[in-house]
């Protein structure tokens, strides 16, 4: 198994992103990306008036 590199946080993007990669002989052999933040907006939407949905879904991302 080669070297493992973690880049966290990834900047100049919206949100909290983390990248992990495995490197062998100067080449990336495996890589993972993961969002480091969760708000559960789907769960918040349950049971609400459908006319209210946009207020929440619009705020997934403010960019």
């Amino acid at each position: 198994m080669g070297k493992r590199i973690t880049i966290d946080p990834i900047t100049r993007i919206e949100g909290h992103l983390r990248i992990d990669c495995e490197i062998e002989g100067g080449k990336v052999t495996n890589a993972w990306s993961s969002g480091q933040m969760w708000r559960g907006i789907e769960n918040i939407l349950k049971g609400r008036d459908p006319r209210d949905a946009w207020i929440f879904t619009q705020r997934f991302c403010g960019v």
Partner: protein
Amino acid sequence: MDFMSVIEKQGVSRRDFVKFCTGVAVTLGLPVSMGERIAEAASSPKRPPVLWLSAQECTGCTETLLRTNHPTLEKLILELISLDYHETLNAGSGHQAEEARLKSMKENEGKYILVVDGSIPVKDGGIYCKIGGQTVQSILEDMGSKAAAVIAIGSCASWGGVPSADPNPTGATPAHEVLKNKGIKTPVINIPGCPPNPYNFLSTVLYFLTLKKLPELDDQGRPKFAYGRLIHENCERRPHFDAGRFANQFGDEGHRKGYCLYKLGCKGPETHANCPVILFNDIGAGAWPVGTGHPCFGCTEKGVGFTLPLHSPARPKYITPPALFDEVLPGKEGASSGIKSLATGVAGVAIGAAGAAMLTGLGKKDDEKQDKEE
């Protein structure tokens, strides 16, 4: 290079800069002459280091500062303060970004301003938001305890916002509560809004910079210069409310005529903010939700925004129809239609009552007409 040459290079003349600072002074409710002092403080070579911590956020708060229509505002922001750490704006990633943060924290301990956007999840050990492997809760506790002041920007950081909406799946908590629960006494200023108005943020920073103290805050930690009044008090559609002229449905006659949006669920009567006064995006009149024909949904107010259904009627805090206003010239007969002159003059009462009956009648007619159209 000094501050003035930097911003002049970016196309902002000294005259424009002082004009901007005077605008800020007026927003703050300070005398116009304070503009010069603000300009002086803002252009001093010792600009306050600002560290920006992002928690459960959507970056809308950052965008509102950077994407204003006014071409110079973003430059002013970035030149007015020394922004040492900001996840979305940092050039370096990973350990480089973390090093910049820790270095500035160490060098400026007790002096930097910490800006927080986004709520802080505290459920399940805070695992729902992490930066560099640490929970944002632990980062905030560390950074908050060493800051001169904390500015919570946006509704999420100020009172919980979207992530804290029922059933609050992640235990989303506002910044001031996280610090308080840990016994950290750093003062916190809340600038709620979704998005918040960038001028309220900038004005707060410049106030702190110029007068070396925090602006006066209300019981929810919001600067009074910006959140001291209800939207309803300064709303351009307020005369329609007082006269009983309402939009009953989107697109109906009342809506097309720009009548009051109370019956569509406008939360202006219970929401404190200066939106109708300073507007958004520097594009002139009407650039705020009610101005575009949509009811206010109360984003700056805990217990209103993201909590009450959008189209349920607001619970007005103060109902002051014109007949109950204080007299303009107390004691001078006939000078105002205030309650006293109405009570003393029988004729006044009769006229007042007739007027009120007429208004009510007209309102009813409009409603009936609308009902038929529906």
